């Protein structure tokens, strides 16, 4: 008999029909009676005082209903790291100072979008430009322009992680290598740009339709900055057109639309243009990396020291987390007896850098895995072998940081090794490179300072057997809606079509912290499983009463059949027992509640996924151009819940992570982003994709629902490193400066040829 009835089978995404018929209504599509359109005026300077804003001309334009500036706000410096007030440094509508090109200074509401845009030109802002600084290494110097009063030398956050004694480790080492890396920025490029429709009504309640990864966070942050009661705000986000880490902080569309609506008591819609999306949302944290690594001559890892400067941009945002995670995942997925990491996040007059899929781990993995191949090459050790020798394993404790309860890394290495061997001898100018990674399944640290459980769920069983499932998680495309419904169906013993899902609405849904940090499957999944189990228990009480089995027998429900586990033929239909259960309890529907908060699970995460990826790539030696041929990934996400979603996440991650590796970049000139459009910012398209293959390595993670862990964010970690290693093996050059453009490859090839001749 199949182990599970629902999970681990390919199913139609429960939002599928809405999405393929064009009926899914995103915030982008919302239109309300009397709705006005808003536009935001943004600073052209990277650093300047705001001396005066004259909005009178704009207000007089026929069709303009209101103009707001920082003076119309409570002046609250907000931030998502609420637990540390000094890290809450962003006003959104700045009152006194602007710190990056694109920072909002005013917002307009008018009867149509074009008028609102015209009105922006009529707002007169008097700036006093200040000296600006763009490079973290420059910003940290004495005498550099200061962005924030309380941040001496522009140091925003520092992080230190240490175990063992690296100096002792280096003394023992037979071989030590030092390398410097430059990890570029990257933009999320969600297809749905940031937007919000805010409606403040005469009963002084605010409703905001928006595209978000966490309606709960937006609700709380709006309440804080607008001076409203949290639950007088309703945030609705039924469908989110992409997130990737860009949409769980309060953004300018949400804030300004709300502000304008509160002034006018009319709905106001603000949709960011693609250009605003590029310059004035948030982006991946660029990092300057130094790694010093010591190993034995047989490849045993002894000591690693990492020092990282991150270009923080103008505000803290989620950058503190990226700083920590990069230092933590620098040591993944291997056993390092001695490790030290020092990270510095430095304010600069650029667009704030924050969270993007991988959250500092892709940068860490790129640097670490590139260096490991270089070390392996220097010592004459096979790249798979050196990794196998040092791989993490189930039961390992990262000293003082984390317990690894499930780990399929060794098997992943074996599977990838098998595939590489099957490729045989490669043609000229082609190489295969690998990278191994690990990633978290949700974070432990309550930096948001929520009083709630990290995730909650509720299940309500109705008389006809249809189940209402209430969850707080947000589906931004990663498929969490379907995954949660599958977990509920599996636990309750019913089918997907028996479930009616409620999500994306703070009025109705229990709190969940949101879709970031790869937390939904494990945290929301656990809460859903618990709620479903509680509901099932109540149903089984009545089944037991009906079936009157011997006390030694256990009951369960599978595929709508409540039965004795040992004697499955003895049972009662789920529909019948539900009727009995409801009738027997005063006509009350059956309700189950669940929640999950990680307790005593280490410093970072309750569980970790692992994987190994191989990238096969061609280099054109004449131009340096890279072509991706194959990408094979063996990964361990514990028990797979939603296989179509996992495969989709993998293929999507490859496109995004390969882009990070060789095509995407945000070049700036004096703080101005030079390619804020989809012509000059290059994302991979269909013809650039390699053939992809996913190999599931099944483990069981005791912490996760049915043994499941994350799948989707961790998969973004390895590709840049695997690609740089593929180029190394194809052409003998190692490029440590992302993105790996053809020009960089060509220059490296020439340098290598020049060295040969010398």
């Amino acid at each position, binding site marked *: 008999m199949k182990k599970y009835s629902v999970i681990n089978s390919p199913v139609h995404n429960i939002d599928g029909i809405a999405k393929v018929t064009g009926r899914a209504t995103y915030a982008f599509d919302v239109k309300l009676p009397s709705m006005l359109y808003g536009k935001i005026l943004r600073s052209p300077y990277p650093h300047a005082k705001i001396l005066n804003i004259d909005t009178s001309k704009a207000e007089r334009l026929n069709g303009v209903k209101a103009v707001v500036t920082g003076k119309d706000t409570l002046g609250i410096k907000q931030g998502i790291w609420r637990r540390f007030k000094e890290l809450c440094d962003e006003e959104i509508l700045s009152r006194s100072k602007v710190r990056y090109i694109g920072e909002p200074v005013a917002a307009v509401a008018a009867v149509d979008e074009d008028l609102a*845009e015209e009105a922006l030109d009529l707002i007169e802002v008097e700036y006093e430009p200040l000296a600006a600084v763009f490079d973290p290494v420059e910003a940290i110097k004495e005498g550099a322009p200061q962005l924030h009063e309380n941040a001496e030398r522009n140091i925003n956050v520092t992080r230190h992680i240490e175990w063992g004694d690296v100096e002792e480790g280096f003394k023992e080492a037979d071989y030590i290598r030092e390398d410097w890396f430059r990890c570029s920025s990257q933009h999320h490029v969600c297809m749905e740009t940031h937007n919000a429709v805010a409606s403040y009504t005469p009963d002084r309640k605010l409703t905001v339709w928006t595209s978000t990864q966490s309606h709960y966070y937006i609700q709380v942050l709006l309440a804080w900055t607008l001076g409203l009661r949290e639950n007088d705000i309703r945030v609705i986000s039924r469908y989110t057109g992409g997130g990737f880490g860009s949409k769980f902080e309060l953004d300018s569309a949400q804030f300004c639309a709300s502000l304008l609506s509160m002034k006018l008591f009319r709905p106001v819609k603000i949709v960011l243009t693609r250009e605003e999306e590029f310059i004035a949302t948030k982006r991946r944290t660029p990092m300057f990396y130094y790694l010093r690594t010591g190993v034995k001559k047989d490849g045993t890892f002894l000591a690693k020291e990492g020092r990282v400067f991150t270009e923080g941009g103008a505000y803290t945002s989620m950058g503190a987390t990226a700083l920590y995670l990069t230092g933590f995942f620098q040591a993944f997925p291997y056993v390092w007896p001695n490790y030290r990491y020092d990270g510095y996040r430095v304010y600069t007059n650029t667009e704030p850098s924050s969270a993007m899929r991988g959250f500092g781990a892709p940068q860490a993995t790129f640097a670490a895995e590139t260096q490991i191949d270089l070390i392996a090459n220097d010592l004459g050790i096979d790249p798979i072998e050196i990794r196998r020798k040092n791989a993490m394993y189930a039961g390992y404790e990262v000293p003082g940081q984390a317990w690894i309860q499930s780990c399929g890394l060794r098997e992943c290495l074996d599977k990838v090794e098998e595939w590489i061997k099957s490729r045989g001898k490669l043609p000229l100018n082609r190489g295969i490179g690998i990278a191994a990674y690990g990633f978290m399944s949700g974070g432990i640290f309550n930096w948001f300072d929520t009083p709630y459980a990290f995730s909650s769920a509720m299940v309500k069983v109705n008389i006809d057997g249809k189940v209402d499932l209430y969850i707080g998680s947000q589906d931004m495309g990663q498929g969490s809606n379907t995954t949660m419904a599958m977990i509920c169906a599996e636990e309750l013993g019913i089918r997907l079509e028996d479930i009616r899902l409620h999500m994306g609405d703070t009025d109705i849904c229990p709190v969940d912290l949101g879709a970031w940090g790869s937390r939904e499957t494990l945290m929301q999944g656990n809460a859903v499983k618990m709620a479903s189990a509680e509901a099932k228990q109540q149903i089984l009480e009545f089944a037991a009463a009906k079936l009157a089995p011997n006390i030694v027998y256990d009951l369960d429900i599978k595929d709508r059949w409540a039965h004795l586990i040992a004697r499955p033929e003895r049972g009662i239909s789920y529909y019948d027992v539900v009727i009995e259960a409801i009738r027997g309890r005063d006509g009350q529907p059956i309700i189950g509640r669940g929640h999950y908060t990680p307790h005593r699970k280490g410093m970072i995460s309750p569980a970790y996924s692992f994987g190994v990826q191989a990238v096969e790539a061609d280099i054109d030696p004449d*131009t340096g151009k890279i072509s991706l041929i194959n990408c094979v990934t063996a990964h361990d996400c514990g028990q797979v819940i939603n296989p179509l979603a996992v495969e989709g996440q993998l293929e999507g991650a490859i496109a995004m992570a390969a882009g990070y590796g060789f095509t995407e970049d945000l070049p700036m000139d004096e703080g101005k982003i030079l390619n804020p459009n989809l012509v*000059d910012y290059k994302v991979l*398209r269909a013809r650039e994709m390699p053939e992809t293959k996913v190999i599931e390595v099944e483990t069981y993670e005791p912490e996760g629902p049915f043994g499941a862990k994350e799948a989707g964010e961790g998969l973004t970690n390895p590709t840049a490193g695997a690609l740089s290693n593929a180029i190394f093996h194809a052409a003998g050059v190692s490029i440590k400066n992302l993105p790996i453009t053809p020009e960089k490859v060509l220059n490296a090839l020439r340098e290598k040829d020049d060295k040969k001749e010398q």
Partner: protein
Amino acid sequence: MIRDFVYLGPSCLKEALTFLSEYKDKCKIIGGGQSLLILMRQGLVSPEYLIDIKHLKELNHINFDSKEGLKIGATTTHRAIEKSSLIKEHFPVLIKMEQNLASIQTRNWGTIGGNLAHADPAGDPGPVLIALNATVKIANKDRERTMPIEEFFLDYFETALEEGELLLEIQIPVTPPKTATVYEKFNIIKNEQAIVSVAASITLDNNGLNCTDARIVLGAAAPIPKRVKEAEQMLVGQKLNDGLLDQVCKKASEEAEPVADIHATEEYRRYLAQVLTKKMVKNAWKQAEVSA
């Protein structure tokens, strides 16, 4: 944001030319609008009058004649060119060029005339048509004139079209015997605009040994699609050999006038010009050897 304008939908070419002469610098022509609308959205172009020639039947044709060659009307879509069996038979390089131009959606509506009039130095048709020795027919209300397409491009986004003039047709002469034309563009994401491109046309003598004519055109390496005539001259009268090829492509790279931008340095563009010229000259030569 697009500014308001008066929309004019002429029913025939004569009417369109009359509008053009009447509204002078206050009007713009729209073909498919695939380039124009983006400029208008960004506020870079804001005409008071927009003359829509998209549906003018007189400008939408692909004709071939064994004496006069190929004639393509200005409002012929890229897709029609891409799918034309006439063009496949006689000028297959145009098919290859179109297949790598933008996207199918853009090609379904955008016109060849609009592309040429936009005069983006990174445009694909320009270099290929110059290599094919094309001429363009231009008209105003009073008269028509033709010019070699080489002379049509003056500078970045600037053509020889005078006020009141409209591009009517592109004419490509019949391919001489022992001639082949090839085109390739270098980009990171397929179908996106060229970082550098090269079109090359080689004509050999009857024995297929010596070169009698060469046309090498660089795209996205100068303010206009540029014929590298010094490089071409090195080939005329010669047999192909590796040494000569190296000299020719180096010369082509010297004649280039590339700019540096976020996609490539000037040095890399020169280098690409060299690499692509070598490849295209070699390919064209080989194809010419076996051609009729």
